[in-house]
Each structure stands twice: as C-alpha cells, then as structure tokens.
C-alpha cells in the first residue's frame, strides 16, 4: 500500500468572473516512510494539493487515497491518522504552549505522555516556555510548537505546508534535521517548500509549477535528466558579463547563480574562443568550468 496515491486531481477556483485552474490533473504516489518534497513557487498549487489530501477541500476531478483510505468517502478515518501543519500559524494564540499541546492530544483521544517519545526532541526546545501563551512566541518557537501539535497523536502521514518559508538558513537546516529524525521513526512526510535547495534533502520530489507537475523523481534523477552541458562562468564584472553573454548568438540560456552565471550553449562550446571574445569585451579573471546542474537549473529548464 502506498502512503499517498493521487490520481488525476483537478481543482478549479472561480475568481469573480474568471476561473483559475489550481491543479491540472496531478497523479503521483508517495511510498511509506518516504520524505517527499513538493517543490514550487507561490501559486504553484502546493497548498491546494495538501488541502485536498488532508480532506479539507474537495477536488472537482480525480481521486486520492491516504494510508489506503479515500479522501472523500473515508475522510474521518484519514483525519485520525494524519498530521497537518498549515503554512499559516493556526494554533490557539491565547492558550499556553503546554495547553495547546494538551488540547490537540485530547482531541485525538490521547495524552502528551503517551506519545512524548515522538515529540521529545522538538518539545525540549520549547519546554522552558511551556507557560507562555503561544501568541507571544517567536517565529521559530511557534513553528516547533505547531510541529509538536501535528505529531502528538502519532500520525502515519505528516503533511507540512511550507514549514521553512521566511525562515533563516540556520533554522532551516535545523528544521530539516528534525524531519530526518522523524522519518527514522517510520512516519511518511510530505513537505512543501519554495526553496529549491531543500529538494536535495528529500528522498523524492515533485516539481510543481502553475498546477502542473514538471517532474517527479529522486533529486539525483532529476539532475541526471539535465542533458545539456552546463557551464559556470565568472569574471570581475558579473552584471556586465550577464548582459554580454545574453547577447551572444551561441548562448542558449544564461542565469545568475550566486557568484557565477550558469550558461548553456546552442552548439558545442569552443572555450578558448569564448574566452578571447569575453576578454576583448573587457572581462578579466575569467573562470569557466563545466558543472553538474542543480535542482534549480532543472526546474528552470522544465519551466520553459
């Protein structure tokens, strides 16, 4: 049995007089125990997809099963089994940390002590503040409390909608370490994120753009499908270099990637002639290396 199975899910929203197709017939499976990433920018359909799978919204077409249960017929059964952390903080701001956790445990007919082992690592970070009202917590602590509340009934499948959006690089890294530990305890995790660099931390990822799946594969698998030779080029004047490269006939695509530009060419590259050409344009300290694509390179290639 798959942990999640989606078949041709389609969702259309009516916005005033026009319609917006949020999901254009998505099909995919998530294996049990997998850490599965749904990667895409805002507006790709990540939240809509999670709402349908967590039985909070109905699709117009298609079907889906979570833990073997149908999202429409068996929604009550699914709600008992899954954990869901929405993108927006949705705990009770005027209850304390401990009260929130105890409230969610009670809702699911369990207690904090019964499942404490599962949340212990995360709860320890916020336990010093257990008498503080949730509304008065900092962003990072709110996020950890929300994760505890989503886990306290020991769900089989955990849905995390953009848990790291707006979170700094250090806290993001910590959060992913928490997820890896949860995965070891046998929980299937679906996590959505707009950060392409987080893809490499998942077993498999679905790349989502405007309601369409661009690809589903392991991060390595996606990168392998990037067939064109990719070059990283830098010089002392990076913005000028970008403009100059974009003007060249043989350049197919050129995007800034941090300290270098990633470039693909229409025809086989003659490095020395390119170097000469760029030097003639006044570029100094040129460095050109052929590199392996990243998930972000692949995403942009697939967006075209």
């Amino acid at each position, binding site marked *: 049995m798959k942990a999640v199975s989606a078949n041709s899910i389609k969702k259309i929203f009516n916005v005033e007089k*026009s319609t917006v197709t949020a999901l254009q017939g998505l099909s995919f499976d998530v294996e049990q125990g997998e850490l599965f990433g749904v990667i895409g920018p805002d507006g790709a359909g990540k939240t809509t997809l999670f709402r349908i799978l967590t039985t909070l919204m109905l699709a117009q077409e298609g079907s889906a099963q979570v833990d073997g249960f149908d999202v429409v017929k068996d929604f009550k059964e699914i709600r008992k089994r899954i954990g869901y952390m929405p993108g927006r903080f949705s705990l009770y701001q005027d209850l304390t940390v401990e009260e929130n956790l105890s409230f969610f445990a009670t809702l699911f007919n369990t207690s904090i002590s019964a499942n404490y082992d599962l949340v212990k690592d995360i709860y320890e970070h916020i336990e010093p503040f257990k008498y503080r009202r949730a509304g008065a917590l*900092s*962003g990072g602590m709110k996020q950890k409390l929300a994760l505890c509340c989503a886990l306290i009934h020991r769900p089989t499948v955990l849905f995390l909608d953009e848990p790291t*959006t707006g979170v*700094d690089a*250090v806290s993001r890294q910590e959060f992913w370490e928490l997820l890896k530990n949860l995965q070891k305890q046998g929980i299937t995790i679906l996590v959505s994120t707009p950060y392409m660099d987080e893809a490499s931390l998942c077993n498999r990822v679905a790349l989502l753009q405007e309601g369409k799946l661009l690809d589903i594969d392991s991060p390595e698998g996606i990168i392998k499908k990037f067939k064109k030779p990719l070059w990283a080029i830098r010089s002392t004047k990076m913005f000028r270099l970008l403009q100059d490269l974009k003007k060249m006939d043989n350049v197919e695509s050129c995007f800034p990637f941090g*300290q270098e530009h990633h470039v693909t060419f229409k025809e086989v590259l003659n490095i020395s002639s390119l170097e000469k050409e760029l030097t003639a344009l006044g570029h100094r300290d040129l460095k050109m290396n052929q590199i392996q694509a990243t998930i972000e390179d692949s995403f942009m290639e697939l967006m075209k």
Partner: protein
Amino acid sequence: MNVIEVENLSKHFGKFKAVDDISFNVSRGEIFGFLGANGAGKTTAMRMLCGLSLPTLGEARVAGFDLYKDAEQIKRNIGYMSQRFSLYDDLSIRENIRFYGGIYGLTNKQIKAKTESMLHHLNLEEEANKMVKSLPLGWKQKLAFSVSLLHDPQIVFLDEPTGGVDPITRREFWTMIYEASDKGTTVFVTTHYMDEAEYCSRVSIMVDGKIDALGTPLELKEKFDSPNMGDVFLKLARKAKRGDN
C-alpha cells in the same frame, strides 16, 4: 558619497537590546545586503532607517536627513517594498500607480507619464486595468518594485522581495535591482536566499543585535575561509545566542 550613515545606533525594548550599537555607511548606488538570522534585529534596524521608529541611542542620517529631526523628509526620499505589503489587491494596476503617485505628491501630469513608461517597461500595457490580485506573484513583485521607485527615491528598502517567487522571475527581479543601482539608486535589501547575497556590492551580517561582519562578498568569503556566502552566513549565525529559537 554616503546616502546612509549610521553611528552607534541602538534600539532597546526594556532590557532587550534589539539593535545593539551598530555603525555602517552605504554609498550612492550601492546594493547593500542586510542579512541576519530571524530575530537578529534586522527589521528593527530597518524600521529606524525608514523613519518609522525612533532609536534609543546613536545617530543616523538617511538620504541626508537626520533620523530624529527629519523623519518625514526621510519617508519622502525613500522607497519601500516587502513581500508582505506591496500593492492593493483590489485596485487595478493603473489605480495602484495613481494611488502611490498621489501619496508621494506627484502631479497628475507626472503620474500619467510615469504610468505609461512603467507599463511599457514591464510589458503590462494590456493588463493595466486588471486587478492586481489577478497577477501572478512574480509580476506583482516586479510591479511593486517599480512602484516603490515611482517618486525617484534616493534609496529603496527591499524586505525579502523575492520570497516564494519562481526561480526565473527571481533572477529577472535582480536584473531590475541592478538597473536601479546603475541609475544611482541605492538598494538596501534583505533576503533568505544566500545566492542573492553574492549579487550585493556589500553585505552586512547581523547576529544578536550587532553587525558581526561587513564587506564585499569576496572579502567575507576570504575572511571566513568559505566557498560561498551561504557558508559565511552559517558560520556566523550559528554563534547566535539569542533570537528565535
């Protein structure tokens, strides 16, 4: 020429030193990356520089105006854009431009001319009368950036302008930042994308209310013996004692 001069600036909330004695200058046309972990004090510092909150201690001049005496003048001479607040969803593109033009005291004639040139530049002429909420996020952010430059401010403050934006649009957005800086506009920008830190002329990294590092990306990478800015950031921000966790 410096357009931002900050000397020993602090902001205390009771005993808590949100911003703790920071000093730096930003020169005209620079792209200044203002980085820090959540809770490091970036937002508090930025609010002071925009004339929205008074410092507890220290001095600062923004666009040539004193933070204590001329906060109103500062507001007139800066632009501001963030991911959370930018444009009015239920006004059309044209109405948003007209609204902000009015706020900044542009004449009708100026607003008209600016509207046409902006719509043309962004290739949004066909969409001009559509509600902003119907635009894809990336377009909205590009429009919001242009609107923040409507009154030709000396400095534009961008608070996580590219959060959640698709990777191609994110790069187009940075091209617009470069263009603004080429024209002499100073850009003060925060981001959680570490590749974007590499695009800045200089970067400061705040830790626990203080500026722990300041320099060009190249200088910082050499100083901290790091292959990229992401690594520099992690090395510094991991030391943070306070903040968000």
